């Protein structure tokens, strides 16, 4: 038998439903007004109709309380359509809704003299837990109270969850939407231009810009993805690491959105998001992998044995982030902001070997203590000194050579340490992430050294490398697919969130 289509009930089904209601329950039928209220849009009440040839022949409703008990409100099938499995199909739909919304128990009550219904419910896992004497009046029939306990951990995980991700850890407001591992929207609103005259990201300016970008970015992402907020299975948000005031804008918005829509929320780690974004291009993050994340705010080397459960920070910058060093040297050379692209452009005609700038934390004694750490502050000072000396001597400063030599020093350390991490840990994969990945020389040198060392190099598309909401949504979707519990509404924005904390509860 082809199962009858089950679809959500609407207020337009009221007449059909009331007809069946009166036939089935006679004197105890609900009044029309009550039924109309039940069918009104709600986050908690879910009503469905079973149809044959688009004719409504049955209906059922459940009141779902996420994380708590759900109650089957009613179920009925027109007499002429009974015995065809419609009751079972409707009940199964109600159970699915309760499970999807993470209810832990489902209650129902049934007339003690309706053995057929009780038998159906037992076959779906309900057990009698109580008997209410004379519950159905005026016939004075007892009610059997039945309960189905739901073991959420044993439920098949949602295969292709629709997740909206919110990212606001630095100067980019990112709203991304994914379905499983499929990218649907990746809207990025950057306040970079507003920081240009300050030569670096100003936290207060970034936070103000997030607030202004929020609503238009959410709307644009939904429009691009052609979904509504009601369609979502979950909301994910960056809760760290990053700029505290900036993070709080995204966290406040995400929590309110979760309450408004009744969707679960996942607080996820920004850095792990940069790694998790690879699922959008390859369907999964192949592990183990080393990840080198380089941006204006971070320079981190991670060992990822498992995306959700085992991420280890091998090292990070002990002073400036690599992107910050590019910005500062760019300013020093009278080039623009952001520094990365400007240095890249100026370096194009320069000789990377013209000046041997220091490679931070690469001396033997440093390699003992800071094998996978980075330092760019000394390099920046060395460039400044070199320029100062040249000017003092009255020489022309060869901007192209300085830029190329500086860039080479940064990129050399980044790639050398990343490749060493791969070799030391016997990991044959390297994943790059962060805005500095836009740097052509970094990509080139990483490709060369990885090939020579037999390491597989992964560089996601640039708009997935820079800070974005899609990577947050993608990591959130991975958590949903793995059946992980969502975060509570109490989690904090944590500017120094450790990379080991993939999802905050």
């Amino acid at each position: 038998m082809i199962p009858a289509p089950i679809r959500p009930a609407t207020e337009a089904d009221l007449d059909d439903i009331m007809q069946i209601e009166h036939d089935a329950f006679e004197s105890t039928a609900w009044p029309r007004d009550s039924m109309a209220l039940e069918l009104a849009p709600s986050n908690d009440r879910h009503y469905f109709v079973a149809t044959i040839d688009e004719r409504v022949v049955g209906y059922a409703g459940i009141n779902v309380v996420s994380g708590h008990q759900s109650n089957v409100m009613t179920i009925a099938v027109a007499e002429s359509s009974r015995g065809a499995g419609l009751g079972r199909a409707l009940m199964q739909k109600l159970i699915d809704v309760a499970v999807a919304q993470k209810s832990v128990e489902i209650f129902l009550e049934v007339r003690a003299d309706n053995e057929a219904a009780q038998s159906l419910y037992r076959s779906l896992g309900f057990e009698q837990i109580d008997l209410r004497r004379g519950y159905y009046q005026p016939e004075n029939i007892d009610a059997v109270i039945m309960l189905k306990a739901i073991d959420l951990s044993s439920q098949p995980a949602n295969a292709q969850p629709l997740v909206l991700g919110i990212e606001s850890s630095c100067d980019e407001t990112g709203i991304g939407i994914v379905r499983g591992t499929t990218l649907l929207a990746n809207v990025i609103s950057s306040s970079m231009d507003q920081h240009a005259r300050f030569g670096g990201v100003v936290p207060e300016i970034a936070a103000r810009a997030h607030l202004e970008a929020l609503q238009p970015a959410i709307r644009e992402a939904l429009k691009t993805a052609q979904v509504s907020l009601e369609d979502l299975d979950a909301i994910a948000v960056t809760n760290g690491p990053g700029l505290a005031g900036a993070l709080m804008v995204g966290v406040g918005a995400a929590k309110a959105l979760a309450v408004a829509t009744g969707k679960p929320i996942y607080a996820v780690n920004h850095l792990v998001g940069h790694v998790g974004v690879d699922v959008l291009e390859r369907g999964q993050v192949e592990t183990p992998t080393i990840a080198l994340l380089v941006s204006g705010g971070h320079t981190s080397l991670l060992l990822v044995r498992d995306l959700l459960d085992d991420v280890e920070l091998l090292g990070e910058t002990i002073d400036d982030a690599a992107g910050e060093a590019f910005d500062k040297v760019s300013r020093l050379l009278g080039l623009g902001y952001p520094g990365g692209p400007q240095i890249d452009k100026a370096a194009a005609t320069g000789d990377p070997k013209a000046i041997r700038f220091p490679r931070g934390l690469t001396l033997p004694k440093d390699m003992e203590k800071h094998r996978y750490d980075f330092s760019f502050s000394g390099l920046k000072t060395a460039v400044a000194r070199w320029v100062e000396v040249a000017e003092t001597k009255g020489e022309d400063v060869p901007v192209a050579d300085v830029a190329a030599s500086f860039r080479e020093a940064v990129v050399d350390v980044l790639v050398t340490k990343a490749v060493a991490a791969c070799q030391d840990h016997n990991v044959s994969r390297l994943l790059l992430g962060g805005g500095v990945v836009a740097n052509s020389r970094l990509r080139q040198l990483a490709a060369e050294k990885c090939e020579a060392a037999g390491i597989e190099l992964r560089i996601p598309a640039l708009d997935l490398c820079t800070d974005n909401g899609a990577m947050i949504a993608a990591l959130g979707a991975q958590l949903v697919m793995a059946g992980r519990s969502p975060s509570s509404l109490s989690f904090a924005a944590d500017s120094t969130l450790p990379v080991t904390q993939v999802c905050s509860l």
Partner: protein
Amino acid sequence: MSPFLAIDTSGGTCVAVVSEGKTLASVSIDDPMGHSENIGNAIAQVLREASLTPKQLSAVVVGRGPAPFTGLRVGIAAAIAFSEGVGKPLLGVVSHDAIAFAALTGPKAVTANPINPLLITTDARRKEVYWSLYSGLDSHGAPIVLEGPNVNKPADLEELLTERNVNPVRTEAQLDATSLAQVASAKVAGGASLEDVSALYIRAPDAVEPKAHGKFGKQVSS
């Protein structure tokens, strides 16, 4: 137009569900920090206590400050997102208006007029206060602002008032989300547009433009 969800994080975290001027549920957390931790549970709690689903709300009202920056943004961000989430209008109200409303109504109401206006001050940190002057309530019950919000050191504010020969009425009234919702109702009744929900920071961001450089940047010493 009700019930309203009202959110204000210009001081602590204040959230309420208000219908026809009556508070159905409210949460007020004095903590001048912790807004982003508290906001989600506070909204969920007032809805639960008011026995309302989010979609049963008719609008979201949010306090625009003035306030120190970080906390204020959390409430506005939450209100924007909640309004998107339920597809209901978002109304912005100056937080000082709500304090003025609380001071000018109720059993302990003070009276104000253009000669003896009501002075509202709130902590702006950095040893400064945000302040506004109100001359009373309009015919719809919304506070009429004479001046503000501005930010000054308390001593400078007093000097300014003395100079202008203004002897203001002062109040101990505190902000509550119910008053915020009532101001919104009164303003809407008076035909005001409350579309603007931008944060009232009053101060510019603390950011200093780098000094002008020589041809190749600053001289590095040491």
